[in-house]
């Protein structure tokens, strides 16, 4: 059973470390978040363009297949045989007319309906399934699917709100901004981190850490807290968009601001600065837009690098970051080349992201022995959770914890949101 949570404050500016470690918390998350009202990012339509195309993915740590049926529609189901529970589709991706479990060769269609059971009438009239076995009741568990601009979401709940209501108009508009024309997947980057999935979610939403932890940014003068930017949230603060404007500060302003930050602001020069240069492609002038969708999805524009991030869970103590990098179908070849070069910035070897893995593992290790203590989330103040038009804040982390606590049924009495 879940231990009672000790909240030092009721505005989500203190989060007990136990939530990052307790096995019972992880079990509850599976039931209340991932099988609960959340819509989860499963993949991109561009990954399964033809009928029969499939790709394996996850909802939290629940194995899922997305695929395109004979009717051209996208379907998703839990990748676990209705017979003895083995993984049905073992390939990462491909094309299949039917999905067949290798154990006893039960076969399923693209919607997960059970098509055939070998020897279901036995051999020579002996053995086989009972007369009353109803194949229509033994399919793979389906997910409800909805699609926004080619981005596939699924849910295991039968009674949650429609996808666009779940996202809200502001988040919907930002996903439409990133996927405003057809895309092509350029490849994947994957990384496993010995930490809790929520620490990674916090990390991506946290604009405060970016130029302090990722010293490449300040060292080479690329992205700094002195640039104009901020954070916006949906009505319930469960999702967020953090953004900044390209080239919106000066070297002198940055040097002044970073004097006491103990980061190495050498203003070094790159020999190949074209790698980090931003080629404007949106009229809003934003060089960085990170859209976080509760619980585990991110839609990212970092300069001209475009990618999605899906956090895959493996217990309370390990997560995987699954990153899908894409370009637009009508990109000229030199723009594709530029985006491929900018993939140097992101992912497990990313010049402006590699540090995340180290930070999360260090905090997970150090917090394990003292789980009654709390993390402090107070950049941008405490009290009511609201949008900010400056970058040095971590207020959207409190928004995440507010909705998370609500779903988990552990919110503090008199919660301030």
């Amino acid at each position, binding site marked *: 059973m879940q231990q009672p949570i000790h909240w030092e404050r009721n505005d989500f500016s203190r989060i007990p470390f136990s939530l990052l470690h307790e096995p019972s918390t992880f079990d509850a998350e599976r039931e209340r978040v991932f099988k609960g009202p959340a819509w989860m990012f499963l993949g991109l339509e561009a990954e399964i363009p033809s009928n029969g195309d499939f790709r394996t993915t996850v909802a939290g740590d629940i194995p899922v297949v997305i695929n395109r049926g004979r009717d051209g529609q996208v379907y998703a189901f839990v990748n676990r045989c209705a017979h003895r529970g083995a993984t049905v589709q073992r390939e*990462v991706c491909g094309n299949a007319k039917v999905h067949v479990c290798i154990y006893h060769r039960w076969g399923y269609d693209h919607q997960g309906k059970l098509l055939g059971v070998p020897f279901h009438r036995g051999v020579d009239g002996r053995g086989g399934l009972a007369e009353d076995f109803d194949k229509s009741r033994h399919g793979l568990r389906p997910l409800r699917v909805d699609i926004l601009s080619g981005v596939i979401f699924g849910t295991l709940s039968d009674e949650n709100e429609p996808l666009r209501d779940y996202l809200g108009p502001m988040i919907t508009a930002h996903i439409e901004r990133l996927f405003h024309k057809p895309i092509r*997947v*350029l*490849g*994947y*980057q*994957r*990384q*496993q*981190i*010995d930490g809790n999935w929520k620490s990674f979610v916090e990390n991506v939403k946290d604009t405060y850490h970016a130029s302090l*932890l990722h*010293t*490449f940014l300040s*060292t*080479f003068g690329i992205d700094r807290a002195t640039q104009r930017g901020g954070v916006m949230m949906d009505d319930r603060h469960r999702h967020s968009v953090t953004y900044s404007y390209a080239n919106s500060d000066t070297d002198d302003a940055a040097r002044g601001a970073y004097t006491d930050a103990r980061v*190495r602001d*050498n203003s*070094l020069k*790159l*020999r*190949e600065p074209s*790698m980090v240069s931003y080629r404007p492609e949106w009229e809003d002038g934003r060089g960085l837009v990170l859209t976080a969708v509760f619980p585990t999805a991110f839609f990212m524009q970092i300069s001209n690098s475009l990618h999605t991030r899906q956090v895959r869970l493996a217990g309370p103590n390990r997560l*995987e970051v699954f990153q899908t*990098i894409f370009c637009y179908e009508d990109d000229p070849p030199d723009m594709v080349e530029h985006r*491929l*070069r900018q*993939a*140097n910035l992101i*992912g*497990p*070897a990313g*010049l402006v992201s*590699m*540090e*995340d*893995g*180290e930070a999360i*593992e260090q905090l997970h290790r150090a917090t394990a022995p003292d789980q009654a203590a709390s993390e402090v989330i107070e950049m941008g103040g405490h009290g009511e959770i609201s949008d900010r038009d400056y970058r040095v804040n971590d207020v959207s982390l409190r928004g995440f914890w507010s909705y998370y606590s609500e779903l988990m049924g552990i919110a503090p009495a008199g919660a301030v949101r």
Partner: protein
Amino acid sequence: MSAADAPVRTAAVREAIDSLYGDYAALLDDDDYEAWLGLFAESCSYVVIPRDNHDRGLPVALMRCDNLDMLRDRITALTTANEYNIHWSLRILGRPRITAAADGLFDVGCSYLVMQTNQEGQSRVFSAGRHRDRVSLVDGLARFEQKKVIVDTFCIPTLLAKPL
């Protein structure tokens, strides 16, 4: 075996290429990046790519340096800016296999295994994979003209800071 492959069999070529890979491993194990950069031709590309991308014809890499200046930038970032898990790395390379040759250029492949050891003295297998390279031989001196590291362990544990 065709005539074009004949130089592959000479002891001098074998010796020069073995030395190149021996130096590559030893200099990286010693974090001696300046000397390590000296093993590459000026126009050399250096690419570390996940095996699943490579096998599916998808171009996204983990590190992509189209020329030596980009590789120098990567090393400058590593030594002056990036933070990473503090560790020693140690690599074992298979014996280089020379698969083709023409005009003083050789296609060379070898397997690798990279161990990481942390400050507490705990070691782990960090990465397994293969090098697929093009090597030039001028006046008995071998240099990398293209280096592609194909990473089998593409679900990268923690992070990848140092070149593989």
